[in-house]
């Protein structure tokens, strides 16, 4: 079969020196890739703000470029880049991957699509299959997210095909946070909405140039308020929500507005 594909002919010209050169190129490319993946995130951490996001997003892109450049350099070193040889090599590769590493290849291809479509980038806050966290790295096969509880979750890229991926900030530093307030009925709704808006505007963490919204729902058990605002830094989202909740609750209590005190089922 190998003879039929022309693999033998394609690799006939490989010499020990060529092999050594190819290995050297791959080693150098790997080192550059490791350096990019280690150094850039560290630099990004120091910069903060938008530069941080841009730098983090450039890491997978740079990796892709390095991989492509390595292939372009290595293949001509090993085999004569004729049409027949290329067909032979990539045909054999496709066959091997198709049978032996179907899922792995699936993830690899999804990884390439991820780099192109960018459903998530390093620095994004995403939720996949119930796991929520910040994308720390995008590897060849899988992405790593860190949950708020500092747990690393590995998400294979092939989730892209059949899972819903929720992205909170989608490559920007704008991540909307929501603080919920469940209040007893019979109070001045417009006053409470105004007050909750002020709660967000007086928080030092609020991006005041982004919309601050107070949504209210009338429920059988009372009123459900949702205070929506954007924190400066998506990483501060839980502290931000806690602060809005604490300050809002304190002020509502001071105004004599009571929270619902019976267990409720929130859907």
């Amino acid at each position, binding site marked *: 079969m190998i003879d039929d594909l022309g693999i033998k002919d394609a690799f006939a010209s490989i010499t020990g020196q060529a092999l050594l050169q190819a290995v050297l190129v791959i080693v150098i490319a790997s080192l550059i890739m490791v350096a990019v993946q280690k150094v850039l995130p560290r630099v990004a951490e120091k910069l903060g*703000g938008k*530069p941080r996001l841009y730098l983090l997003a450039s890491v997978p892109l740079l990796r892709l470029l390095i991989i492509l450049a390595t292939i372009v350099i290595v293949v001509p070193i090993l085999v004569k880049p004729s049409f027949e040889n290329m067909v032979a090599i990539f045909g054999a590769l496709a066959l091997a991957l198709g049978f032996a590493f179907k899922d792995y290849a699936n993830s690899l291809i999804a990884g390439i699509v991820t780099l192109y479509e960018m459903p998530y980038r390093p620095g994004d806050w995403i939720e996949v299959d119930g796991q929520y966290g910040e994308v720390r790295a995008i590897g060849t096969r899988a992405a790593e997210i860190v949950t708020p509880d500092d747990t690393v979750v590995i998400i294979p890229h092939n989730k892209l095909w059949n899972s819903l991926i929720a992205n909170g900030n989608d490559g920007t530093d704008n991540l909307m946070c929501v603080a919920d307030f469940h209040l007893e009925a019979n109070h001045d709704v417009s006053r409470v909405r105004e007050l909750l808006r002020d709660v967000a505007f007086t928080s030092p963490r609020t991006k*005041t140039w982004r919309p601050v919204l107070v949504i209210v729902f009338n429920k059988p058990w009372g009123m459900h308020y949702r205070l929506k605002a954007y924190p400066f830094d998506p990483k501060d989202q839980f502290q931000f929500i806690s602060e809005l909740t604490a300050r809002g609750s304190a002020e509502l209590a001071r105004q004599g507005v009571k929270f619902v005190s019976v267990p409720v089922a929130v859907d």
Partner: protein
Amino acid sequence: MKDKNNENKADPCLPGGLVPAEQWTLPQTSVRRSLKDAIGHALKQLQAEVSQAEEPFESMDELPELSSAQRKRLAPEPDYSDQATAIACGLERARTEGSLSREVAFLVAPPFSGVQQALARFPEPGQSGSIESGGEEWAIISPPDALSFDDHEANEWWDRQDLSRPWVIPELADFWLRRLSGLALVKELFRRIANGDTGVGIVGCSSWCWRYWGHYLENAQMSPWTPGPMDAERLGAWFTYLASGSGKSTVIARMTGDGYYVLPLAETDENEKDKDSKKRKYSNFLRDLAATSRGNPGVALAIWQRSLRARPDDDTKLEDADEKTEKQSQTADCWVVPLERLSLPTMPQSKESVTGFVLHGLLLHNGLDMASLEVVTGVSTYELSLVLSRLKRAELVVWEQSDERWRVTPIGYPTVRRHLQSWGFPVDQF
């Protein structure tokens, strides 16, 4: 920016005149300078962790700075009474020309632009150059000692103020605190102004405070005015005016490195038709200074004061200069160190969110005491003390005894603004 409407009428103490805020533009600088600044800022952020040095200000030359007497003579603080008169005249002119039709004029300006100080000295009737409005006196409205009000109390407080005759609020930022009970006074003022319940008035407002309230009151359209930006030419004219008092005598300031002239300005020289002056080479220092200070006169003056030296670092360089003339080798009033050889205060490495909250809070409120700062930022007094002491050592903030407030320093303002911007904080438009 050259504002043709104001160019010929501008007072030397307010060279840019007053312009609608939306017409304000950043003074231009060279691409080289912009790139250098951007790269320098990025490197400083990266190096912050490596270098723990907290040298507030580094002058990379060994020349003696000006003595306080020399500084008072060559780069003194401006006389804000003159600025007040210029502002009053500018507003009156705008009213006469019809470009300002509102009863209440809003003057929005970045910190250190001198508007607040000028409005606090707003000319009384009978003073030279003052404006009278219907024969009434201008009343300066001062903020209350405590700023916690509910809506009803705020209403009562404003009822007690006499807004029926012309009034001035030098700094609106002094009338609020970023806390739930600290918004009522300003909200009520805006409501009254929108309803037309007030008479003729002027509200001075820090650009940072204005930005906040612009977000809070989305539908408020107050069409603010602002002092025109200080470009190189205006800075030169202003520095000359400050040094000479009347602006009639000439001040000579030359670069320490190459002897190029900073002052007098090229235009002034041409007007004097001095044959030798045509051979003079002029420095780009003022253009770079205008860009570095973003056209802010207070910041530019602070950097200018730092850059002045009593003597050149190397007289022999001047002797060897190709373009040496008799005129050039004369003794200058002062010498100017290039901006490249001056380093503005740098941001110390610390927890950026806390530092950002503190600096942003100080700019929003035109300075705060420790208790108010704690309320506004939510940072504990203990942590505030640590952060403020670091910022003070870095010369980015200063404790002002006169009103017992922490404030950002004019020389540190460019660094503070740039860092707040890169940390994602909302910054002013200026």
